[in-house]
């Protein structure tokens, strides 16, 4: 094996790829060649580092220098200065948004964003080349599978997972070990292991990053699960919208087969396990387990009633055990280090860590993994760096379309399954969207309801018709046509849908409305009674005005598409509300901050 004196790690996750990291990799290779360093420096395309905000991200080892927002024109400088002469390129070193701190001496782990994290599911993301199985093997890869197959009975494996306290990371939090046990207890000639990688929650990308950054961790865990429950085949159902993840899974499965870690007679124990990939086709409801299985069967992804539970009758009518990507990503570590190591992390009922996708109005957008029990405040302020541009925090949304919005007063809630439900939201798969004072909570509720109406499969009436009626009411409220009694109608519909819908999608569909009604009722009332949007977001409920800060530069009048702005040069201008389209172009153009929304 060749030994290199330095490694250049370039993030090849979706976020950084979108901002051009593939070009960077090519350029690095080209420049390193030009400077005659090919035998000394190696370029590696890794999975997601997590700090997507700073992308494209480049890390140079052994010193661990963290370069952020690297552009193609910076590559030569890094090669000629850092890699050739050993001088860090200070102006490209990552700067902490919140603290404005830039310290090139700091190790990666000491940066605020990483300091509070504890990476188990993400341990290899951004560290190894996901398309090279040898790198995974060097990180103790497939040792857990070997341990399980050669030194543990099937019952011992299930006991270990049960004792670890691991719960389903897809959102509902059902104890993983129990699921395994149910499937183990089912007697049948054929059983299946399945992986839910149909990450449909808008604004969540935990599973995608794990698949892109460490696909073997999921494959290894599925093989362990197959051994434990007695299944010889597994299916991974992954979103077609994740081309990089699909490609890396395919590469990983092929490599594992070549190494004899998948296939027949694994580790010469007589255990056979084959893994297949199935692509989703853009249906949110397919995240529901029965719907997902129908989709793998090549049918419409509509849910069916339970029982029978999948552990008894699932995929192709056979006992099936389905876990989420992140759940699997914890399994090998639990087998390797033991249940006691794992259940020492977290809270009384929620063990281990949870990965969150931080997004929205937050400085450090990205992927974070924190121990259960970390407070929302720590995640949002210490890790996430708070809201940008000095705006005031308003709410944090967890749990996606099934979850809720929590206000400032609940920020000290320690994050675990029970606490989030008690607070009126839920863990969900791990999306965490921050909203600031400019976001209208009624409109956010409308946004989620619009999503649900779009994604409802239409099989049961409460979800198909009920959510549509709720959307109509919400639309009318944000349009400024809300009526007395609308809030009560929403509450009534929400309760009915919750009690009568067929599957999880419908039963939780009203949560965003209920939670915003609970914490931001005043905003609903302002829309309905005063025809006013407190966040100045809803177009029909706001007016643009020009204040006396106006210098009469005419920039606004020139940019207005409706010709609604008039005034003499060097005199204060005014907007004709009848002509105004409320496009906001004038406000963007004004250099004096003279245009306001009311």
């Amino acid at each position, binding site marked *: 094996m060749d030994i290199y004196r330095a490694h250049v790690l370039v993030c090849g996750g979706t976020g950084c790829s979108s901002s051009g990291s593939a070009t960077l990799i090519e350029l690095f290779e080209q420049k390193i060649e030009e400077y005659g360093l090919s035998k000394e420096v190696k370029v590696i395309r890794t999975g997601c580092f997590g700090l997507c*905000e700073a992308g494209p991200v480049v890390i140079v080892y052994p010193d661990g220098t963290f370069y952020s927002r690297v552009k193609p024109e910076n590559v030569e400088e890094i090669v000629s200065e850092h890699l050739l002469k050993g001088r860090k390129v200070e102006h490209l070193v990552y700067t902490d948004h919140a603290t404005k701190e830039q310290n090139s001496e700091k190790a990666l782990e000491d940066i605020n964003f990483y300091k509070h994290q504890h990476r188990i599911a993400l341990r290899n993301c951004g560290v190894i080349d996901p398309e090279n199985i040898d790198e995974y093997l060097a990180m103790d890869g497939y040792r857990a599978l070997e341990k399980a197959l050669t030194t543990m009975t099937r019952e011992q494996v299930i006991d270990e997972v049960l004792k670890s306290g691991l719960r389903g990371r897809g959102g509902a939090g059902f104890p993983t070990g129990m699921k395994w046990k149910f499937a183990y207890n089912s007697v049948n000639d054929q059983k299946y292991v399945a992986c839910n990688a149909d990450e449909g929650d*808008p604004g969540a*990308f935990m599973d995608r990053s794990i698949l892109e950054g460490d696909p073997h961790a999921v494959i290894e865990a599925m093989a362990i699960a197959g051994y434990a429950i007695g299944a010889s085949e597994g299916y991974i159902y992954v979103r077609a919208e994740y081309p990089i993840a699909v490609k890396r899974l395919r590469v990983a499965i092929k490599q594992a087969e070549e190494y004899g870690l998948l296939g027949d007679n694994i580790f010469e124990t007589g255990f056979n396990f084959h893994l297949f990939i199935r*692509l989703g086709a853009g249906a949110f409801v397919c995240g529901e387990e029965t719907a997902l299985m129908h*989709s793998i*069967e*090549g049918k419409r992804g509509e849910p069916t009633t339970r029982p029978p539970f999948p552990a008894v009758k699932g995929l192709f009518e056979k006992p099936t055990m389905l876990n989420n990507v992140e759940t699997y990503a914890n399994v090998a570590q639990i087998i390797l280090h033991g249940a006691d190591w794992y259940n020492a992390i977290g809270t009384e009922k929620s063990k281990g860590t949870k990965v969150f996708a931080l997004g929205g109005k937050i400085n450090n*957008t990205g992927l974070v993994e924190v121990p259960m029990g970390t407070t929302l405040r720590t995640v949002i302020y210490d890790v996430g760096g708070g809201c940008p541009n000095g705006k005031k925090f308003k709410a944090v949304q967890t749990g996606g379309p099934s979850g809720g919005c929590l206000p400032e007063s609940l920020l000290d809630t320690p994050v675990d399954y029970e606490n989030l439900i008690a607070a009126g939201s839920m863990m969900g798969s791990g999306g965490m969207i921050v909203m600031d004072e400019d976001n209208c909570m009624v409109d956010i509720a409308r946004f989620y309801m619009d999503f649900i109406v779009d994604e409802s499969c239409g099989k049961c009436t409460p979800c198909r018709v009920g959510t549509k009626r709720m959307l109509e009411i919400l639309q009318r409220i944000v349009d400024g046509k809300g009526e007395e009694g609308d809030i009560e109608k929403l509450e009534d519909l929400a309760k009915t849908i919750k009690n009568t819908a067929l599957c999880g999608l419908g039963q939780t569909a009203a949560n965003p409305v209920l939670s915003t009604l609970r914490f931001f009722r005043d905003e609903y009332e302002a829309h309905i009674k005063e025809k006013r949007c407190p966040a100045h977001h809803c177009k029909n409920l706001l007016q643009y005005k020009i204040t006396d800060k106006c210098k009469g530069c005419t920039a606004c009048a020139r940019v207005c598409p409706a010709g609604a702005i008039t005034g003499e040069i060097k005199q204060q201008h005014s907007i004709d509300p009848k002509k105004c389209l409320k496009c906001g172009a004038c406000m963007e153009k004004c250099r004096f901050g003279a245009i306001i929304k009311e």
Partner: protein
Amino acid sequence: MKIKGGIDTIMDDERTKFAELEKLIAEHKDQKGALMPVLQGAQGIFGCVSEDVQKAIAEGLGVTLAEVYGVATFYAQFSLHPKGKYLISVCLGTACYVKGSQSILDKLSQVLDIPVGGTTPDGKFTLEATRCLGACGLAPVMMINGQVYGRLTPDAIPGIIDKYRNDDGEVA
């Protein structure tokens, strides 16, 4: 409108596509749950799954046309009608939405003069709203034929569209 290359070329082109479809069906025929992968492949070959394509799949796999139609219309990925040369997908995931992706979508609709879901009369652009492209760090984002544009503002839209409008070849 003049047909480029004449009717024979089009017929040849169609024949090649259907031959490709036949091969695809043969590959998946004995697989459990073959309908989804076959439809996905067909969507890739033809750009849409029209009635003729659905009929061919139903015959090839030995399932009813109703079943094929049922699956094809259930999933957002399958389209029954051809789409424009450039498919513009604006992310309306939560992270993008709270950062103003609706105004990006509105601007595109205005610039292209088509509603969301529509295709321009010259067949060049189709405008779609999509759910989470997973590039939340760059919000708000849109994708044009696989190329992601991030940290967008409405002002940037006309420039990007012009680049595609003025170029008949491939755009990098």
